[in-house]
């Protein structure tokens, strides 16, 4: 009986209908057996007529009988809702139909419904479709692929028979849903590639999907992919395994000002929560896990209106150095996976900041040091005041950022190392004074590719007392909106007005046209007379802040009262803003192929990976040892994949690099990756991978809207419950009208034939 469901939406009508088809035959036989006897005289004429017409009569009666049987069968087909598209019938189209079945294994398919995930239902549906299609060996070919791996089909263009079913069944049952955010576009394009190479076959695409609105509606590329399938005459059936939208709350983002923090210093974590449901969420709590242990204090989540976001801050204090894994986990809902999010933070005893001050007394550095680490217990910062010689003698990567105070000029190797430090993500703050060698600043630091200084330095300017009112000898800065000026950007903030600048460097480019100014340089603050005072520009992955006045009190009152409070806050924010990325920790979303790349000179080719525990498979590997392979250096560091290109700190330009991929990094959690320097020292990078939040909107698309994506009507959405075998289950509407037309035609023919074969005496008036 089950095989009937591939042809009929109401298969229960089929067998009774087939039985009814025999009724005309039975009536015909009965009428031959049940007759009236008539004694007749003119038999010779009757026998003569019978002899002449016998052959024709038999043919006509058989034809009439056939028409009546056909009428009954057509009525049965209409009632049973015959769904086979005649244009796709084997007889009409050729020997084989090629079905490409795509299983949606995107993250949203992990929605829990009736104690099991939707993906399991999708696999069951796939098994049912394959097994029903397998009842006709030789006529079907099949390709099975997933949306997360359209380039890695489970089966490619195989004849669907019992052997394939036996091979596929265990593989399908071991199939797991991915944690990836994927759109149907790539899978549909892969299906088109598979089918477009087949000539003389009937191409059909089936996608077993949850049909999320976020994937199917409002995406022109999806409509384009469907149109491409239409161009190769492929019918697309979307088998919908979810019919109702579910409420879902997601931890959309975990952010912090820094991911490097000192022991005992509060670290603020910002949680962005979004309610994808239709109702307001209330009473939710989030648990915090640090290194797998649940903290006793929960995060209270405020009420979130439907479709809205909320940001909640939570402070954490770490009492031991090293990398720490932090997980925020919401109460469970329809999609459990997006309730958790991971982040990794590097905790050190202190955060090191290098203050280079070439002025003899290093008074300016003292002010900065006092601002940053007046009480190291509170800020967790440790400043190191040195002269510029340190730039060539100490590993710069160990510092969060570098202050360059009163530097006259640097040797070439120091400049090179400094450029490499910034390019690799480090942050530098310049505070030149009147001993600066402007020629060096304006030439060496302006070299293409390592432009460490944003503008050409001009002369030192002082406030001319005659142009100032009230004989004031200073100018106030005017601050733009910027993270380091948070204290000055507060509305009606009194802190900005008390900052007094008496001397500053004028830029040599000030006299040039504004159009000629480097667009990568941003002026963050100006003096009242319009001269730039604080500038910012980027070099590589690093940032450079340039103050055109001194850090101490020689040229301004900034470090002393009453401007000192703002000075302290600003430098603490400068540290956060310039802080070198923490190389030992990283966060990203699950998806794509995880790939690492680094210079040969930095690490060996060995990579050890400690995988997070797999909740679904306890026997899964927890440790991998991989070997990286040499690759040619690329400017982009990978073709759009999830590659992590370690910076080339050698400063020797493009060099031979090693790369390795970690295909097992496909689930959320914290991965520990260990590389080894040439001297054998192991360096760990902790990678926190969380599920993408783009799959969290569980709203189901309107089937009619999705079907309307194709103007030609070759896309059809059906429920998984009525999905039949691979050879049918579509084009029902067209068949209905075709069958109805055929039925009318048959009935008209039957009437005409009956009229011809029966006698209707004329009415005598």
């Amino acid at each position, binding site marked *: 009986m089950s095989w009937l469901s591939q042809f009929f939406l109401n298969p229960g009508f089929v067998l009774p209908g087939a039985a009814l088809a025999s009724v005309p035959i039975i009536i015909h036989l009965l*009428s*031959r057996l*049940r*007759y*009236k*006897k*008539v*004694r*007749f*005289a*003119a*038999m*010779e*004429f*009757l*026998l*003569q*007529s*019978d002899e*002449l*017409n016998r052959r024709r*009569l038999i043919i*006509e*009666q058989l034809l009439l009988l056939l028409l009546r049987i056909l009428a009954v069968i057509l009525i049965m087909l209409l009632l049973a809702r015959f769904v086979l598209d005649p244009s796709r019938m084997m007889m009409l189209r050729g020997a084989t139909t090629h079905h490409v079945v795509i299983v949606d294994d995107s993250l949203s398919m992990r929605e829990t419904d009736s104690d099991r995930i939707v993906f399991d239902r999708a696999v069951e549906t796939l098994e049912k479709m394959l097994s029903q299609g397998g009842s006709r060996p030789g006529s079907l070919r099949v390709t099975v692929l997933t949306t997360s791996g359209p380039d890695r089909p489970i089966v490619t263009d195989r004849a669907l028979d019992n052997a394939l079913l036996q091979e596929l069944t265990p593989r399908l049952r071991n199939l797991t849903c991915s944690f990836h955010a994927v759109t149907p576009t790539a899978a549909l394009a892969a299906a088109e590639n598979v089918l477009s190479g087949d000539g003389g076959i009937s191409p059909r695409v089936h996608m077993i999907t949850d049909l999320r609105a976020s994937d199917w509606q409002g995406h022109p590329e999806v409509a384009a992919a469907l149109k491409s399938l239409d161009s190769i005459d492929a019918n697309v059936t979307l088998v919908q395994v979810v019919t109702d939208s579910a409420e879902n709350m997601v931890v959309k983002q975990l952010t912090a000002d820094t991911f490097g923090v000192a022991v005992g210093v509060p670290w603020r974590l910002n949680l962005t929560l979004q309610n994808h449901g239709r109702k307001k969420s209330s009473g939710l709590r989030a648990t915090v896990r640090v290194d797998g242990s649940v903290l006793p204090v929960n995060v209270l989540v405020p009420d979130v209106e439907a479709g809205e976001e909320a940001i909640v801050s939570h402070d954490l204090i770490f009492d031991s150095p090293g990398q720490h894994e932090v997980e925020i986990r919401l109460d469970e809902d329809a999609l459990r996976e997006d309730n958790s999010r991971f982040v990794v933070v590097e905790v050190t005893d202190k955060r090191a900041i290098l203050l280079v001050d070439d002025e003899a007394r290093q008074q300016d550095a003292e002010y900065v040091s006092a601002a940053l680490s007046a009480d190291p217990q509170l800020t967790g910062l440790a400043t190191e005041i040195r002269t510029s010689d340190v730039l060539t003698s100490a590993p710069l990567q160990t510092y969060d950022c570098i202050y360059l105070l009163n530097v006259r000029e640097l040797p070439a190797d120091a400049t090179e190392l400094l450029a490499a430090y910034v390019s690799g993500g480090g942050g530098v703050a310049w505070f030149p004074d009147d001993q600066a060698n402007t020629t060096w600043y304006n030439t060496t630091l302006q070299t293409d590719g390592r432009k460490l200084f944003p503008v050409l330095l001009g002369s030192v300017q002082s406030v001319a007392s005659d142009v100032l009112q009230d004989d004031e000898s200073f100018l106030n800065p005017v601050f733009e909106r910027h993270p380091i000026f948070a204290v000055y950007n507060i509305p009606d903030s009194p802190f900005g007005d008390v900052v007094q600048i008496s001397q500053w460097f004028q830029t040599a480019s000030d006299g040039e046209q504004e159009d000629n100014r480097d667009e990568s340089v941003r002026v963050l603050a100006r003096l009242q007379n319009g001269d730039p005072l604080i500038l910012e520009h980027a070099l590589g992955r690093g940032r450079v802040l340039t103050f055109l006045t001194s850090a101490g009190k020689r040229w301004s009152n900034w470090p002393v009262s009453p401007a000192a409070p703002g000075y302290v806050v600003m430098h603490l924010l400068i540290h956060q803003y310039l802080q070198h990325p923490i190389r030992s920790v990283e966060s990203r979303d699950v998806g794509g192929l995880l790939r690492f790349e680094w210079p040969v000179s930095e690490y060996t080719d060995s990579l050890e990976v400690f995988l997070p525990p797999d909740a679904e498979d306890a026997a899964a590997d927890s440790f991998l040892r991989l070997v990286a392979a040499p690759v040619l250096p690329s400017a982009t560091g990978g073709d759009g994949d999830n590659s992590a290109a370690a910076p080339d700190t050698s400063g020797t330009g493009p060099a031979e690099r090693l790369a390795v991929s970690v295909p097992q990094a496909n689930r959320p959690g914290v991965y520990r990756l260990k590389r080894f320097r040439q001297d054998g020292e192991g360096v760990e990078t902790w990678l926190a991978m969380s599920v993408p939040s783009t799959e969290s909107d569980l709203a189901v698309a309107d089937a009619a809207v999705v079907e309307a994506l194709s103007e030609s009507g070759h896309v059809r959405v059906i429920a998984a419950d009525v999905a039949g075998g691979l050879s049918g289950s579509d084009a029902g509407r067209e068949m209905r009208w075709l069958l109805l037309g055929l039925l009318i035609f048959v009935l008209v023919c039957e009437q005409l034939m009956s009229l011809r*074969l*029966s*006698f209707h*005496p004329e009415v005598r008036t």
Partner: protein
Amino acid sequence: MTHGLERFLQPDEIAKISRLELRARKVVEGFVSGLHRSPYFGQSTEFVQHREYVPGDDTRRIDWKVWSRTDRYFLKQFEEDTNVRVVLLVDGSESMQFGTGSLTKFDYAQTVAAALSMLVLKQNDSVGVGLFDSQIRSLIPSSSRHNHLSAVLRGLSAETAGGKTDMIGVLRRAAEAMSHRSIVILISDLLCDRDQLFRGLQLLRQRQHEVLIVHTMDDQELDFDYAGTLRFEGLEDGGKLTCDPAALREGYLDAVKEFQETIRRRCAGSIIDYKLVRTSDHLDAVLSHLLNFRIGMTGK
């Protein structure tokens, strides 16, 4: 079924026949005086009765003695005052038993024969009746006696239809039995061998007999208005056939039409009068047709 006089001569039939009496008498008498002048003309053998004069009667036969007493014209009628002999041959075979209306073909043939006999006897002509199937089963000799009608009716009612038709044998015997020139009226459905039929008729014609055929057929035999699945069983061992008659109707009617045309054509060739009658036709219409037919013959 009664076979008495009342059965064949119902009052309404008699009334209808009476209206034909005047024309029938004229036809018969014209026939006698015009075409078949009797060798015994004027010689009466036995007075039978008087009959009131009607215009057209021979004035020489007026009984003037009666006129002198009653001042009205009467004619003297004598036995054997005619030279017209009519022989009615009625088919009594099994096929004549078929009928779908109120009368079977045999009933109808009996009625036609009785009516004609009465008409002939009313004209003082002699009439004889033969009933046959494979042989002549009863034969009422010709006579013009006034009480001969009851003998004719008894002869007609004495037998019911049965047996097969042996037309040539019957006609041969009838020809041999008729010594005088006669008018032979064959009332039959003619469902027999056509060649034998016409050979028999030819024998009658060779002996100078006038032959009239009253071809009696039932409505269903002519129209074949059957419907539904039927099993036809032939009379006179005509065979059996189960069929949908509607499907065979066209071919059947063509065959019947061809049969009629054959009979009509061969009758014309043998100078035999032919009249097809339906058992649903009224008797007066049939008799009128026959008498009109005789008028046409005398007009030649």
